């Protein structure tokens, strides 16, 4: 009896530990990427998540000086999530930078996002993706990366990335209107 219990416990402990892939250990999908960024303590990574409740309160807040009609937009947004990596000094920074670039490829190839816009100039590349879900839901994913030459080695490398995900019940073509463009 004791042997059976110990065997079960050993199996449980073994299966609960997962092997990590150093290449993609913090990214297996969009949520995984944001989660990895959220849990990262690097000072070069800026992460935020804003829920529907907070968006609604922000829209009603007394903040002035905004170019955006927040209240109009916050009615349609369900959440906003952002990661910004401003350096490539540490291994964590470089991994998130690399995965941000990979995300831009994967959302198009694997997650059925459509490319609304791509701009590229002097190493600064931006992608604007969107995807419609059931019930009129829409996700807009913005991926921006910057590649520039390393000051010492001269090698072109990723030095900045921003990933912004907005979800809600709006149409992708409403975005320019909503941000007063």
């Amino acid at each position, binding site marked *: *009896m004791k042997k*059976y*219990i110990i065997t*079960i*416990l050993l199996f*449980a*402990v073994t*299966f*609960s530990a997962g092997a990590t892939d150093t290449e993609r250990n913090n990214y297996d999908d969009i949520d995984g990427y*944001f*989660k990895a960024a*959220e849990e990262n303590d690097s000072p070069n990574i800026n*992460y*935020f*998540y*804003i*829920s529907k*409740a*907070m*968006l609604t*309160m*922000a*829209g*009603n*807040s*007394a*903040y002035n000086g*905004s*170019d*955006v009609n*927040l209240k109009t*937009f*916050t009615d349609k947004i369900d959440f*906003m*999530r*952002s990661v910004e990596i401003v350096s490539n000094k540490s291994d964590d920074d470089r991994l998130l930078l690399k995965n941000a670039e990979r995300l831009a490829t994967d959302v198009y190839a694997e997650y059925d996002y459509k490319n609304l*816009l*791509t*701009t590229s*100039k002097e190493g600064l590349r*931006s992608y*604007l993706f969107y995807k419609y879900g059931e019930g009129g839901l829409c996700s807009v994913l*913005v991926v*921006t990366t910057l590649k520039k030459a390393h000051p010492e080695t001269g090698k072109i490398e990723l030095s900045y990335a*921003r990933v*912004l995900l*907005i979800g809600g019940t709006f149409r992708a073509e409403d*975005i*320019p209107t909503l*941000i007063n*463009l």
Partner: protein
Amino acid sequence: METRELIENFYDGCTTAAEENELRRRLCNEPLPADIEREKELLLAMLPAAEAAPAQLAERLSQLIDAASEREEKSRRKRVRLYTWSSSVAAAAVLLLCLFAPTTQQPRDTFSTPEEAAVHINEAFAHLASIIGRGAESQREVAGHLNIIGAATGNSIHSIVKFQE
């Protein structure tokens, strides 16, 4: 042996167990003379209360009791094993559930005040606007280039047509 003789022997303490049983039987089941009838109740009260169990019956009873006791003991041990096994399986299942239970937690709000959130929302929209603006500028550049190409192409065609004319 006569009933009177049995009674005499009984009073004298000389009867065997079998004789006493016989005497009891006769007193209960057979017609008795009047004088013995008067003594019947007294004699029945004095005679031993029950028949002695046969030796085989005692042994059989003992065996039955032992068997019942053993069955009860086995059943008790079986119940104890079952409870032990069930509780072990339940404990292991709870442990596995705790380890493998999927977590579906919603992400937590980063900002504690709506004003702070509003600042970042505006910044995010500014970033989005800059991307769309760059896209529009690129389109204008491309459109401009196309106009130049179109104009050049148009002039060339015009020249060719004029030449052909």
